[in-house]
């Protein structure tokens, strides 16, 4: 019979980072050695991965920009001193004023803000020379056509100043990146890294100041 010695299970936090592919290499080795012999932690990794995926799907559907605007509105607009005027404390007048502001805002929005296409799709190939471009859109789907077939590729999208717009794991089979936000006009670069952080490819694309 095999003799046994007592050791500790891995923490939820460590297993979650492992499931998300965000654990550093010495810790990955530690966790994987444990997973080799611990069925309970294997199940926990699967559960944590399913939870993280569900949370990511749920969050990605939420309108983060609208929330930020609302936050600004609530904090700076409603806190303003003139908003405390007594006539605004009368419900009917307050509602009527609010409605008028909404109608005015909507008309200004429709007049001055260009209508955006709902989704732009780009197919990128790593090469120098002319780069693909797209018009303004609410979301952008990017496909890296010549990414190597590795299950653990990471990508980041940066703007012309090098600020990170998006970073994360690349979908292994489709090699797609879904940018669920509107990109400002300008040049952008997509960098593809392998598991060890080595830069594999760099792609460029342009968002035009028009549809």
């Amino acid at each position, binding site marked *: *019979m*095999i*003799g*046994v*010695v*007592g*050791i*500790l*299970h*891995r*923490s*939820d*936090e*460590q297993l979650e980072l492992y499931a*998300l592919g*965000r654990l550093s290499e010495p810790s990955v*080795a530690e966790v*994987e*050695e*444990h*997973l*080799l*012999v*611990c*069925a*309970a932690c*294997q*199940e926990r990794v699967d559960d944590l991965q*399913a*939870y*993280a*995926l*569900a*949370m*990511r*799907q*749920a*969050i*990605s*559907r*939420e309108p*983060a920009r609208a*929330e930020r605007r609302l*936050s600004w509105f609530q904090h700076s607009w409603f806190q303003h001193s003139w908003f405390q005027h007594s006539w605004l404390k009368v419900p009917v007048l307050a509602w009527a004023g609010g409605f008028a502001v909404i109608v005015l805002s909507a008309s200004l929005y429709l007049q001055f803000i260009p209508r955006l296409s709902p989704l732009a799709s780009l197919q990128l190939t790593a090469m120098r020379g002319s780069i693909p471009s797209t018009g303004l859109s609410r979301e952008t789907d990017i496909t890296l056509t010549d990414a*190597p*077939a*590795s*299950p653990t590729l990471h990508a980041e999208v940066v703007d012309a100043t090098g600020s990170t717009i*998006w*970073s*994360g*794991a690349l979908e292994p*089979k489709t090699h797609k990146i879904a940018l669920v936000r509107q990109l400002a006009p300008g040049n952008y670069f997509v960098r593809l890294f392998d598991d060890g952080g080595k830069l594999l490819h760099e792609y460029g694309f342009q968002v035009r100041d028009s549809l």
Partner: protein
Amino acid sequence: MEEQRSPHQYEPATQAFEMPDWAGTVDRIRAGDPIAMTELYAVFTRGIRYLLLRSLGVEEVDDRVHDCFVIVAEAIRSGELRDPARLMGYVRTVVRRHIAASIEDAISRRRTTVEFEDSVFSVSDWKNNPEQNLLARQRAEIARRVFNGVSRRDREILRRFYLLEQPQELICQEMGLSYNQFRLLKSRAKARFGKLGQRLAESGSLGFATLLIQNKDNKTEAIQAEDIKAEKASGASH
């Protein structure tokens, strides 16, 4: 006062787990004890299979497990494994090498046979089955409810961690959080996810009739019967 801890110091695990004593097992295998080999196989197969499945999928997984185990057994017998206490590290290295070699092989095959890909190779279906699709949809719906049920600040933390994949250190720094606050928020959200999921599964209030089934791993999961039928029907029609 709240304890400040670096995000790299993980929450200590509290439950003990019984780990085989590898030195004794390795000695017995070297001495030619067949029972020790069987015991080793019983301990490692599931783990090797698990790591291979995570990286390479189900294709030829049994053969791959066998290949890895043969390499490990041969290394023990020949004395190549010098420190028996490092047996798990050695097994992991063998599995990782196998995964790397398989990926390299797949890349090379794709490069050299790309013209005949459609006619020569059959492409296996990587999609989830209807039950898995449904479970994923249910989990996403529960997560959405959990996400909408927390404060705006907590939502921002979850968004940064799960969607933007920002490191814990950055989130704590930019949002003025201690590591413990960050950890507690995440664990509260997860606990709520579990409770809400259980409650919805029991009440069947996800919009369909819900039943509980046991999957092949003996884990109870909520399945919506009508949806499964619908998905199967649509799958069959394709």
